[in-house]
């Protein structure tokens, strides 16, 4: 990302890539997403954290695939169900968040972002920035850094 992130984030209107995980709609800030691809040939990593489905090759770079359903404590996908990966760069490493489907790009007014409800499931709360109440449903905004940092903190031994 050559664009300074701060300026993008502070504009009143932000763009989000929507993704669906199980039945819930989530949004990822567009600056965080650098790729959307269909994962092929994921190599499982024995002994890895449960959320890590494995590693795969994306144009010569090693991508670590994160199973978002598992991270969010949702029922796992059956074999053969469609899956899409959202590629994100985090501290120089590429991760692929495995989701059910990728939707559209929405431009939303940041001021309409409401705080996450306090009674939200802890696992969800830890990785969400806030919620947009769209006409048809709720859009939970994911915090990319927290998703990865929390997996790392949970599993990297001291």
């Amino acid at each position: 990302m050559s664009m300074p992130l701060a300026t993008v984030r502070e504009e009143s209107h932000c763009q989000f890539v929507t993704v669906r995980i199980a039945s819930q709609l989530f949004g990822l800030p567009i600056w965080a997403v650098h790729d959307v691809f269909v994962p092929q040939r994921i190599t499982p990593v024995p002994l890895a954290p449960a959320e890590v489905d494995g590693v795969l090759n994306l144009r010569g770079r090693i991508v670590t695939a994160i199973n978002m359903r598992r991270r969010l404590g949702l029922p796992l996908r059956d074999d053969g169900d469609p899956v899409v990966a959202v590629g994100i760069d985090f501290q120089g490493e590429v991760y692929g968040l495995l989701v059910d489907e990728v939707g559209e790009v929405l431009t939303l007014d940041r001021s309409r972002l409401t705080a996450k409800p306090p009674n939200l499931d802890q696992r969800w709360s830890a990785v969400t920035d806030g919620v947009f109440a769209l006409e048809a449903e709720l859009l939970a905004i994911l915090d990319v850094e927290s998703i990865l940092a929390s997996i790392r903190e949970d599993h990297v031994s001291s």
Partner: protein
Amino acid sequence: MDDLLREFLTEATESLDLIDAELVKFEREPNNADILGNIFRLVHTIKGTCGFLGLPRLGSLAHAAETLMGRFREGAQVRPEAVDLVMRSIDRIKAIVADLEVNDGSEPAGSDADLIGALDAMAEKAGASGASSPAIPEEDGEAAAGDGNPDELERLFRETPVEVPSAGASSAAGEAGRPGAPVAVRPAGGAPEPPLASREAPAVHGDDGGTHARGGSAAQSIRVNVETLEQLMTMVSELVLTRNQLLELVRRQEESEFKVPLQRLSQVTAELQEAVMKTRMQPIGNAWQKLPRIVRDLSRDLGKPIDLQMLGADTELDRQVLEMIKDPLTHMIRNSADHGLESPGERAKAGKREAGTIRLAAYHEGGHIIIEVGDDGRGLNTDRIREKAVAKGLASAIDVEKMSDAQIHAFIFHPGFSTAEVVTNVSGRGVGMDVVRTNIELIGGSVNVLSRRGQGSTFLIKIPLTLAIVSALIVEAASERFAIPQLSVVELVRVQKGSEHRIERFKEAPVLRLREKLLPIIYLDQMLGIAGDTRRTGAVEDSFVVVMQVGSRSFGIGVDNVLHTEEIVVKPVSSILRHVSMFSGTTILGDGSVILIVDPNSMAQVMTTGLASGVSAAHKDEAPALTGAHAAETLSLILFRAGSDEPKAVPLSLVTRLEVCDASRIERLTGQDLVQYRGSLMPLVYLDQASRDRAQGERAMLVFTDRGRAIGLVVDEIIDIVDDENFTIEFNSEIPGIMGTAVVKGRATEILDIGHFLPPTFRAVAGPRNVRPAERPRVLLVDDSAFFRNMLSPVLRAAGYDVTVCDGVREAYSHLDADPPYDVIVSDIDMPEIDGFTFVEQLRAGARTRDLPVIALSGLNTPEAIERGRRVGFTDYIAKFDKEGLLAALEEFTADGIGANP
């Protein structure tokens, strides 16, 4: 920081290292005008640049040092204390330069008046007494220009571009950089050198592999940022991968017009890769630069004259590897000087030359670099190492008798092993050789020692040329492919039922008979927890064993198939996978798929701990947690006598270390005995009063540690360590502190309840249960504290449970799919990775584990915590020290388990 300053700092650091090396030579040859000229010039350049950059503190110190050096050039007599003073000044300059780097170019506050005063005084004295011998010609009038004024500097800069390659500087660098140049004696050949005027530039000893020339040859070398090189390397790696993929594609087509151009591309890529690799290469001499000074200082501190010989300094290796071996090398040189070499008196008595020799040599050998660090000193004392190994509990007295000298010598690489009688500030603190080994093994190298009594020791270090690209064996296990670095692979053996080579089971452990030896085998799939049913039932008939050698350890890795070898580009795993120690990286194969690179060191560790007998508990602790299931199989007891004549025993896994200390070192404070141990006071406990009263001679003690705290149990005598999985412990004791009795080596032996003897803060669960092994319910014990794990597992096992221990939730997950499933989980709450609350929440969310009983074990016993425990889904919540409660709860939740079979 501006570029000019950064440039200065880089050059100054390099120059200072050279000055050090030159000064050492100068001290030996005070009349060598060339050496003096070199030093003088280097100092002068630093001083001059300081004035220009506005670094007054550095400038005035360098000025004072230069003045003194000037006196020497004028012919004043060189005395050791003067050289010493200059060296101290150089050290100070180094410190200031280091500070500059950290503080973004501003000089640290402080005064150098002490050094400057001493330098000036020395210069004055030298000036008064000297000036008798003819001065060295000063064509450039340098000695006069002692103030670093801008004119002088300008002239200096002006001259720089037209200077011819500097012979003086290259001899300075070459003193570390030429083969066959014994440092302490003379630079290579000692050929006549050009006059001083032509040698003004500082030695430029760049990151790019030692270019020492400027001026006429300036165009031939440039400084390149290391980052740029790294980036280039990454890109070439990508190119290699893409090429491999293309080749794979074309291979599948019969006729392709791409074939010829692709061949050309392939060749160019290979050449490019080689060329880029070359840019990363540096002569090993760069890592040796500091050594002459270190040896000189050691020689002085220890009162031993030492000759340092450096051979093959121009041997090149990857800069990444170079960085990693710097510290281990320094440490080994220190060791050689301190322990290896005898005092001059001893040497004379042994009929040796008074000055000891330390020899450092490097050379290539089949894709590796071998570095030898040798001395002609006293050699390793095999007997003492043997004794020490036994005393430290690394091996039993019986074991060591059977070991070869080389095996005994290998003990010096164990953690905490030092045979030095006197701990000096140079070495001998029992940290060191193990760190050396760890660092070297980290880069896929190995270290061995060869030693002959009275003739010296030589350490042989074998390291790979580079870490970026390795040759690997691609193998298959459980239908997945893995890469094993060739460096550790010795040979491949095909095993088949009924053939010459077959895997036999020795008890449960698979072994392979190979040339009269039994090679222990681990199956890759089992180790990684991905084994299929065929492995479990032993139905695999045709497979391969990859024979590995890691350090002194040999073992075999059982795999289903060996596919081919490939030069692979190592890519690090992402940070969230970095803790999976079994893998050292990933790579992309020619067909585009990603595979994992197995780490031979981690495997060797699993192997050692899996087979461990008589290895100290501390050592076991370091092993990857995978061995948990293994360790559960056997119980090792340490036998000793204390108080009475009957042998007593405790589970070895509870003991961190065995120590011996003289009774006079035991200090008695109000009701508590203490001994100084590893820099802090360790409380001592005794089994009875009689034992405490015996205050004479050496006392043996068992040391228990938990999270940094240690406690010593003083015993009369340590008898042996025994391994058996069939100790039947009878829990029939009414005596507090005795857990029960067992028949060990034919004698009734009391098994101590260690918990009873430890202070309350230390005490954990350990106690009797009147239960015999029956249908053993399976318990998964999760606790990050090794102490509690080791404390609890023997107790639970003794109480009739089949226990698997895990050091954290992550590892627990890898066991959860086990078959048969676990009956109950006992989990600590307060753990560093995932805590117990989160763990149980996750378990409750899983289909298989939804109804599994989970017992919380916690030191946190507030009503709130207990309430939270219940809410998140713990079946029961028990205090960490309440062993009765735990056993009762276990009995309850394993309904048809041991409760029904008293």
